[in-house]
């Protein structure tokens, strides 16, 4: 723990810290371009020069290890002069096109030039011009603006694990490019846009759309996967303009996946903005709320509880599900389910369906077994964390499931479920590695659990955890990797078949037979709708996707950016989403729709405000009141032993970019999907 003096204040920093970190510790701001907390140190921009006692010249603070007794000063004339010199060199080739640059207003170079720039240039030669580089449908390049900080190169190599970006040439001719200008094949690629300190890499879908100071910024939570990445939604008027990551060390650090960032243009397309009723000819006709309720309420009043069923979709907030659960309870229907993919998980014990090790716990793991999942596309930010651990500790990772490139080397165990029994018996080679490990992790994906024999696989997961000693006093190595943002909250509140109720498969069978006459699909689109052909389908949701097409009546609701809500991520961490814009047209917030309809159907759920609903929800599920704390739940036996089916293990997602109603409606995601599929150069430019 070296102690050093920065501008007269003494600070103590951790071993291995740099002078720059010590300055920050002392509350002194040091300008920088190439240095970034989460990337390796390059030391090539020279902007962070500081004076060090007994050093003959200013030192680059980002690359200088803090030493005992150093005396650092950052406010001397020499430092200012040196930084001004660096700035002058940076601006030699940087175009002065801030008025037409998308980075304007949030540009590190622009900001720091205010402090260290000259009022005029002494450079009279021609500036260099650099041709644009193709980097796929998300990243727009204006490489003339590049100052060669190499943050993007280090990010793609170190964090994303796709070493396709690089700097070719030397000296004045250095250029950043991808190998042969291919699309950057990473699910995290767009983070380089945030990293770029200048306007060289900017967002292509957001090009020339808005200026940062025009936007209202709302802090919220992502629902594109179940990780619950912290995001900031920037909106102008009634439209969401962009989504940016928000720092949360224990969840997403400061990265988000491309889908989280760019599926938002799907929020403008295919929206349900008024109620629809299917008429006698079988066509969906627009209607008013009153007309819709006039059709629906008497119908629900007339039907018996057991003749109705509700299925909750993957992106719902907890309040919506709780309102729906209360409504169906009042209707006396036991048929409710939040597992539309048919995952064989039960609502108890809680540790059976959580990511118990926590996301931050990945950093401590020393062996990982991934079963029936492809974390690279199911939770890309989590996958980057596994990769980081691999780079630090070379931990052994085994992968059982459909073969995939996870960006770090894995021991591929094939896709035969039989292997699970072998591991559970302790005879498998990797079981021994897990057993030896102090903090082993077992990550089970939906690909393993949504099968007909999911409960047996779940039980094997328990057996493996027990066999290898994955659960101890301060470590729980059993982890479930959910795909649906709503799933954990749903299971927490028991949005599963009540006494005598049917699960999704049962509901579908009963609906096909005509025993269930009304099916309430709340944002549930990821199912084959053919079974519901004979039943009356109510679709509540925000997009005209599969569910809406099968519906007899459509009630337009709010997307995640349009409502306040509680989400629980796969760690069991409770987080608040917030409204950035209002739902379009006649669409209303989900809970309000249920509230109004319940009144008309003669069994009011009784909450008049969202706060009242929340209080009732928290009363029923007390841990939802504990915000931002990952769960640590008691370990108990789960799963149901059974015979395994002779089917290969697959992963639940086949395409990263198009996995939900919003991303399927997004043009940007479609372009990414196409680029990823064919890897051909985008001819749009």
């Amino acid at each position, binding site marked *: 723990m070296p102690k050093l003096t920065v501008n007269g204040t003494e600070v103590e920093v951790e071993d291995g810290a740099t002078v720059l970190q010590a300055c920050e510790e002392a509350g002194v701001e040091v300008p920088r371009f190439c240095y970034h907390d989460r990337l390796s140190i390059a030391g090539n921009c020279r902007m962070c020069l500081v004076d060090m006692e007994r050093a003959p010249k200013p030192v680059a603070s980002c690359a200088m290890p803090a030493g005992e007794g150093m005396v650092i000063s950052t406010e001397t004339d020499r430092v200012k002069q040196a930084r001004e010199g660096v700035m002058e060199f940076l601006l030699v080739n940087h175009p002065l096109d801030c008025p037409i640059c998308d980075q304007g207003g949030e540009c590190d170079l622009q900001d720091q030039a205010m402090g260290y720039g000259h009022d005029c240039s002494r450079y009279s030669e021609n500036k260099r011009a*650099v*041709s644009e*580089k193709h980097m796929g449908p998300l990243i727009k390049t204006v490489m003339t603006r590049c100052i060669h900080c190499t943050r993007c190169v280090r990010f793609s*190599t170190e964090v994303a694990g796709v*070493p*396709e*970006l*690089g*700097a*070719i*040439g*030397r000296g004045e*001719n250095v*250029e950043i*490019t*991808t*190998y*042969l*200008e291919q699309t950057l094949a990473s699910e995290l690629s767009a983070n380089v846009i945030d990293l770029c300190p200048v306007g060289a890499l900017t967002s292509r879908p957001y090009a020339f759309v808005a200026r940062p100071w025009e936007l209202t910024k709302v802090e919220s939570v992502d629902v594109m996967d179940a990780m619950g990445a912290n995001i900031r939604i920037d909106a102008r008027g009634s439209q969401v303009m962009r989504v940016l990551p928000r720092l949360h060390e224990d969840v997403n650090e400061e990265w988000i996946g491309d889908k989280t960032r760019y599926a938002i243009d799907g929020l403008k397309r295919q929206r349900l903005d008024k109620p629809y009723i299917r008429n006698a000819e079988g066509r969906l006709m627009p209607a008013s709320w009153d007309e819709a309720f006039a059709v629906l309420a008497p119908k629900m009043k007339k039907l018996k509880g057991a003749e109705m069923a509700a299925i909750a979709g993957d992106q719902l907030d907890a309040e919506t599900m709780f309102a729906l659960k209360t409504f169906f309870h009042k209707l006396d229907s036991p048929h409710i389910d939040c597992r539309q993919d048919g995952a064989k998980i039960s609502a108890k014990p809680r540790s059976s369906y959580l990511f118990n090790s926590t996301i931050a716990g990945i950093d401590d793991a020393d062996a990982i077994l991934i079963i029936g999942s492809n974390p690279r596309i199911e939770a890309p930010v989590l996958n980057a964390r596994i990769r980081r651990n691999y780079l630090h500790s070379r931990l052994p990772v085994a992968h059982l499931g459909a073969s995939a490139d996870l960006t770090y080397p894995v021991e591929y165990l094939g896709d035969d479920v039989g292997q699970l029994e072998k591991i559970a018996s302790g005879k498998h080679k990797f079981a021994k590695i897990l057993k030896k490990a102090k903090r082993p992790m077992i990550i089970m994906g939906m690909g393993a659990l949504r099968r007909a024999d999911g409960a047996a696989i779940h039980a094997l997961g328990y057996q493996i955890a027990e066999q290898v000693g994955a659960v101890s006093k301060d470590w729980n190595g059993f982890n479930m990797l959910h795909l649906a943002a709503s799933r954990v909250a749903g299971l927490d509140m028991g949005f599963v078949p009540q006494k005598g109720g049917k699960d999704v498969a049962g509901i579908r069978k009963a609906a096909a037979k005509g025993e269930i006459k009304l099916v309430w699909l709340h944002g549930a689109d990821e199912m084959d709708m053919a079974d519901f052909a004979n039943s009356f389908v109510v679709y509540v949701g925000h997009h005209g996707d599969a569910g809406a097409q099968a519906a007899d009546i459509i009630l337009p609701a709010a997307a995640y950016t349009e409502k306040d809500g509680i989400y629980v991520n796969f760690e069991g961490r409770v987080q608040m989403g917030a409204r950035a814009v209002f739902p379009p047209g006649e669409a209303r917030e989900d809970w309000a729709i249920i509230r109004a309809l319940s009144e008309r159907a003669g069994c009011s759920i009784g909450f008049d405000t969202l706060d009242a609903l929340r209080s009732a929800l928290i009363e029923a599920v007390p841990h939802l009141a504990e915000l931002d704390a990952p769960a640590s739940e008691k370990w108990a036996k789960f799963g149901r032993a059974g015979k395994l089916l002779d089917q290969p293990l697959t992963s639940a997602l086949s395409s990263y970019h198009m996995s939900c109603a919003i991303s399927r409606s997004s043009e940007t995601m479609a372009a990414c999907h196409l680029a990823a599929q064919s890897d051909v150069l985008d001819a749009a430019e």
Partner: protein
Amino acid sequence: MSIESIVAEQQPDSFVFSAESEAEIKRHLAKYPEERKQSAVMPLLDIAQRQHDNWIPMKAIEEIADRLDMPKMRVLEVASFYTMYNLKPVGKWFFQVCGTTPCMLRGSDDVIRCIKDKLDISSGETSACGQFSMLEVECLGACVNAPIIQLNDDFYEDLDYQSTAALIDQLQAGEQPPHGSVINRQGSEASTGTTTLKTVKKDSKSAGK
């Protein structure tokens, strides 16, 4: 200098190391421990270039990346950083003219002008006959005998306009003159002949003091 401008437009469909190259590669790889074999990237690029008419096709870069377990981009970065790797075809006679300060002070501009006059090529170009290429490079490390041309693997030193012209004439006539100083300077002694210790007189009174 986009990627198109630094690599050749016409690329071969494949690249295979010859038997002699393989032997050389083995020799170089043996110098490094297995987990540090990426250190051999520069010798391997050189081997590829020598085998392939003095330039490196992209297929060779991919082959080297494969062998050394490194990303293709990293190999391309190395190959594009150093001027001694050619990513485009060059002529049979490849002039690398040093233009750094000492050579410049001693007349490298004349050398470049001579090449331009005789062959009509500037830096980075190949002559119409396809036999000659020229590239202005940074310091070749023989400043004592500036200005210098590196012709393929050999240094020609102490050049001026006339001697460069004579060199080109001889090459065009099909013979390669001996390399080294064109004014027959020995090693890096002064151009006026050896001077060191010459002024020391044996019977000097001061010699013993």
